[in-house]
């Protein structure tokens, strides 16, 4: 196995995209990564800035959609019984809709 890429992942490394290596000196692959770093190489972060942004947005989408789903009954009640939707709910639902990309 020749090390080509090393990415920091959790408490260990992902090597060549397919090997999850734990931080243990009993692990032969970890010893190789340590040697690779000692040669002057640097592991890349687990996520690039773009990946962090994409992950953050994905989580925001899920959270926002869940909030909308959980407050849909206000809208249904208003449609069926004319009971007003509380202002704070209306405001929060608008914010949730805006957050979804």
């Amino acid at each position, binding site marked *: 196995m020749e090390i080509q890429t090393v990415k920091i992942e959790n408490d260990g490394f992902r090597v060549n995209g*397919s090997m999850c290596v734990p931080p243990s000196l009993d692990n032969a692959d970890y010893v190789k990564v340590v040697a690779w770093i000692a040669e002057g190489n640097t592991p890349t972060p687990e996520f690039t800035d773009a990946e962090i942004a994409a992950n953050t947005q994905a989580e925001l989408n899920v959270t926002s959609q869940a909030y909308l789903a959980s407050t849909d009954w206000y809208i249904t009640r208003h449609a069926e019984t004319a009971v007003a939707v509380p202002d704070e709910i209306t405001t929060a639902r608008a914010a949730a809709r805006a957050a979804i990309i």
Partner: protein
Amino acid sequence: MSKARELSDYTGLQADITAGDTAARAGRKNLIINGAMNVAQRGTSLTGLYNGTNYLIDRFSFGGGTTDGRVTMTQDSDGPAGFANSLKLACTTADTSIAAADENYIIYRVEGQDLQQLKKGTSSAESMTLSFYVKGNAAATYTAEFYDADNNRHNGQTFNVTTSWNRVTLTYAPDTTGAYTDDNTIGVYIIFWIHAGSNSTSGTFTSNSWAAAVTANRVSASNTSFFDSTARTLNITGVQLEVGSVATDFEHPRSYGEELHLCQRYYEIIADGGRANDSPYFGVGQGVKSDQINWFYDFKAEKRAAFTLIVPTVTNGYQAKTHTTTISGNSLGFTSVHQSLHSIMGYMTNISGVTEQSCWQMQLNGAAAHIAVDAEL
């Protein structure tokens, strides 16, 4: 029956046992796992090899570095009578300009705790005998070296290869210096040198003599370079290491299943989408949060030490399923905490739509998807 007759019979029986012991020592005499090269979990061919550590046939690696030569390593069906397989190296790119730092070899690694019967480092240290069958495309001389990783001592001997299968028997002197540590790390490397530059050959090679390791003394100057021609091949099988000065018959009675189980201490395939008759399932999953499923798998054999999870990236290659729902991921991962040597808790992330505490059937999707764990020395 008289007492004298009984005693006579008993004495005769003991003589028979002693004679038989020399011919074929009973029990687990072979310290080598997979010496007959029958288990090859990783595949049957690797090409373009020259550096690093490359496993194909379980427990035996090919590696080294710096040479311009290249090798194809295969599990070959050629073997001496009684052997169905051998490890074959074939030179595909020659290197006739040997650099000083060149070194290439087949290596077998033994845990220190499996070497304690040699009593190395004590006044009652045992000799040991390494035997194996070899064959080449032409005559060649290589070096078989024991390298004590705990004490940085070594002992090498040369052996000859011909165009026919022949059994090599090398007895190594006992070493009263430097005990093997009784643990799960490397005690000794058994190194079959097939190519070496002057860094390893320029000193004084003393056959069958333990000494503090000196790089220049490790390989015989008579060592053939495997890379001298693209015609060069080497087959090896029937590798056996046993205590004592006698090479007994190869320990054939181990079944494939036994040998596989011994190998799985070091490397185990959890699931392989590309292997016929293999289960594509890799355990049970549990929904942890909306974008994560944790999966659990009990190993077939306890691992030697902290293991590497091998999982190639495959688009939608890893799936969590219920009767009506499939969630697909491109890879899997794990964190070293919460692991044991008996099982793994992995995760699938970068997914969505998971309900907390939901239960999933985890399975591969496609021939390229593959999961294995590696705890090799």
